């Protein structure tokens, strides 16, 4: 596939890795923000190509992972109501709430459907006027324009039986939260390429000098990641802290202005709870008052839902780059992708699930 295969060239990957090795003189800790990047790094063994001085830690950029357990329970409570068609991206279906996952809710008789695009749900709503159709609108800034357009379209077509359960999160407040943490060890970031395709990278430009931390907007293929790492290492070695763009083929400095305008029409910025990290101020989107009739949280009676997380889970510290998956005593034992205990195991893009799925269960040997 054009623009994919050429960025997986093994020979070139080796050259980039050699250049990183030549450039590095001391230890550096770099965080890739996005779960898609984590998945690629583990899948292709990118970290195994790096010199021992360069450590990659895995960031909080997996929206499925950071969706709070309470929100998942809320989704299940809505899906179980009679007369509801509950629609979700496939990744969300296997994520367990306090009482099973959406597949089990479906097996219990609920009408749960996997959709590829939020526009599919608008179509389902139009075709089923006697039902209430609810879409689980999760995601980062990348997904927000699509979800916003679905709501916008529903209103434009006067479709009144369409609702969204919004659990949108934003990347820059999470980066700031990690950098403000007193035990932070991240020295540079690989920024989220597709989030920036939508948002551009202007909002990251004040962060790099303020925290003296390079941010390299980076793509998702092996050569993208290696080039992003090389650019970050060069900045660190030269004492620079700037925003650089490795992913110029998809990201422009101002991003997609039309998409940003649609986000602004439909959503307001709000405080959001992140699974594993807690509430981060101004870190998410919710529907604005103009679209309140489409807001599932305001139109479904759900009562109080409280869902405590298992105490053993260290996913909060994994998401901040303080711990690796195999530092957790439950990793691969009580906690697996089939029965995850926390954020980083619930989705294939979570660091723990990626380590588990690509056979890194035996990495931490018992100390002698």
């Amino acid at each position, binding site marked *: *596939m*054009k*623009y*994919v295969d*050429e*960025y997986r060239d093994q020979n*070139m990957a080796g*050259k*980039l890795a050699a*250049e990183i090795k030549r450039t590095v003189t001391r230890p550096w800790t770099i965080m890739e923000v*996005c*779960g*898609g990047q984590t998945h690629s790094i583990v899948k292709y063994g990118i970290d195994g190509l790096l010199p021992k001085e360069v450590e990659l830690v895995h960031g909080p*950029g*997996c*929206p*499925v992972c950071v969706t709070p357990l309470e929100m998942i329970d809320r989704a299940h409570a809505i899906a179980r109501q009679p007369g509801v068609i509950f629609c979700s*991206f496939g*990744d969300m279906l296997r994520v367990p709430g306090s009482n099973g996952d959406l597949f089990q809710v479906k097996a219990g008789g609920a009408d749960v459907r996997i959709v*590829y*695009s*939020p*526009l*599919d749900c608008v179509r389902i709503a139009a075709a089923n006027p006697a039902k209430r159709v609810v879409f689980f609108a*999760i*995601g*980062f800034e*990348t*997904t927000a*324009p*699509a979800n916003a*357009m679905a709501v916008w*379209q529903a209103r*434009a*077509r006067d479709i009144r039986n369409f609702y969204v359960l919004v659990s949108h999160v934003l990347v820059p407040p999470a980066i700031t939260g990690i950098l403000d943490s007193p035990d932070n060890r991240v020295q540079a970031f690989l920024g*989220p390429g*597709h*989030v920036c*395709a*939508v948002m551009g990278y202007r909002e990251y430009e004040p962060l790099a000098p303020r925290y003296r931390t390079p941010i390299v907007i980076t793509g*998702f293929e092996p*050569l*993208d990641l290696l*080039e992003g790492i090389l650019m970050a290492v060069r900045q660190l070695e030269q004492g620079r802290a700037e925003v650089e763009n490795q992913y*110029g*083929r*998809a*990201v*422009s400095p101002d*991003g*997609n202005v*039309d*998409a940003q305008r*649609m986000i602004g029409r439909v959503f307001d910025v709000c405080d959001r709870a992140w699974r594993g990290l807690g509430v981060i101020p101004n870190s998410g989107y919710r529907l604005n008052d103009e679209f309140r009739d489409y807001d599932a949280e305001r139109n479904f009676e759900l009562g109080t839902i409280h869902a405590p997380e298992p105490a053993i889970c260290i996913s909060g510290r994994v998401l901040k780059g303080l711990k690796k998956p195999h530092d957790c005593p439950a990793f691969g034992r009580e906690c697996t992708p089939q029965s995850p205990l926390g954020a980083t195991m619930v*989705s294939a*893009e979570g660091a723990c699930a990626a380590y588990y799925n690509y056979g890194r269960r035996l990495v931490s040997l018992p100390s002698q």
Partner: protein
Amino acid sequence: MCLAIPGKIVELEELACMRMGRIDYGGITRNACLEYIADPKVGEYVMVHVGFAISKVDAEEAARTYQFLAEMDQLEEIAVPEPEP
């Protein structure tokens, strides 16, 4: 989740008052919404996420990684120490 796949626009169409396009991903084709793409043209590549094109693929920028690597090779040759006389 933030996965976006590069695909080639093979057809433009209008659907429910939205600009849509048929996108070819190396042989598999699917519809995508092109509302967020300024002046989309058949033959151009776009990055598609959950059925929405979120940016055009900049062909010149795409070639940049290769130039960068080619230059790195040349530097490697320069870096070879000159033979002792």
